[in-house]
């Protein structure tokens, strides 16, 4: 394949790709998509959050899971970086800590695809008997 150097090259590739894309039934409405937010503050980046984000971007796309991957700032869990918040439509958002590639894979295959809880959740809110 020729080297991609200019925007014109990019446009040519786009035409090629467009003809191959399957049309998806789901609309691109954010509320209907799985939202993945990777903590990308100083603590996160220093702990390898970029790699984690890259993995989510690549793997979700490869498995054709409708998701939006974004970065967020510090969520306050610097001791557990990289952290990722997963919001599945209709469910409460869940924050996971120590998310390396392996953990990310587990999260995608178990929690996102099957809804099974995975170890390593950081509790954000809890109710006591008095609530």
């Amino acid at each position, binding site marked *: 394949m020729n080297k991609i150097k200019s*925007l014109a090259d990019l446009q040519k590739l786009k035409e090629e790709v467009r003809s191959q894309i399957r049309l998806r039934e789901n609309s691109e409405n954010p509320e209907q998509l799985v939202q993945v937010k990777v903590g990308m503050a100083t603590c996160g980046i220093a702990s390898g959050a970029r790699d984690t984000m890259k993995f989510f971007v690549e793997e979700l796309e490869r498995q054709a899971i409708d998701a939006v991957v974004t970065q967020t700032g510090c969520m306050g869990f610097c001791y557990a970086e990289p952290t990722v918040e997963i919001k599945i439509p209709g469910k409460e958002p869940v924050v996971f800590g120590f998310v390396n590639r392996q953990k990310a894979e587990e999260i995608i295959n178990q929690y996102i695809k099957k809804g099974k809880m995975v170890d390593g959740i950081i509790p954000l809110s809890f109710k006591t008997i008095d609530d």
Partner: protein
Amino acid sequence: MKTISEHILDIVQNSIRANSTLIEIIFEENKLNDLCIVTVKDNGDGMDEELVQLAVDPFFTTRTTRKTGLGLSLLQQHAKQTGGFFEIQSKQGEGTAVRAGFRISSIDRQPVGDIAEVIYLLMLSHAEIRWIFRHQAEKGIFELDSEEMLKSIEGVPLKHHRIRDAVIELIRNNLDEIEAMK
């Protein structure tokens, strides 16, 4: 942070929080002065003089989740360790420019790292912001404007793996061609 591109990924979060709609990431190499100036410039909320003084303090932050903010102070430390400089120019209501100068030949100068990947990730996760990346080297200048890039791939999602690979390749090939500093 192990690379300059990781610092950029960090500092840029400040610009995003400041409600910027245009963020410029600029590398200016000057082999004659042995200096590479890295600038992150935004059109966000800006800061008054007092805030600019406080910003570099690692124990100061405007966020509410915790009490420290290390990004700017770490970048300042790294720039100064190479014998370079660090400055913040800001005007409330107009925007902020963070400029870090690194001595290119200094043994303490970190590698630039995978800037192509960082630029792609930023454009992907914050497509509502206009990103302009520019690298000025001895052999030439490379500039990428997210607006133009998105126009050229119109009709196909940016997250598609072939588009992703292509955009990252495009940046890398152009940087190689102008022999950008690594």
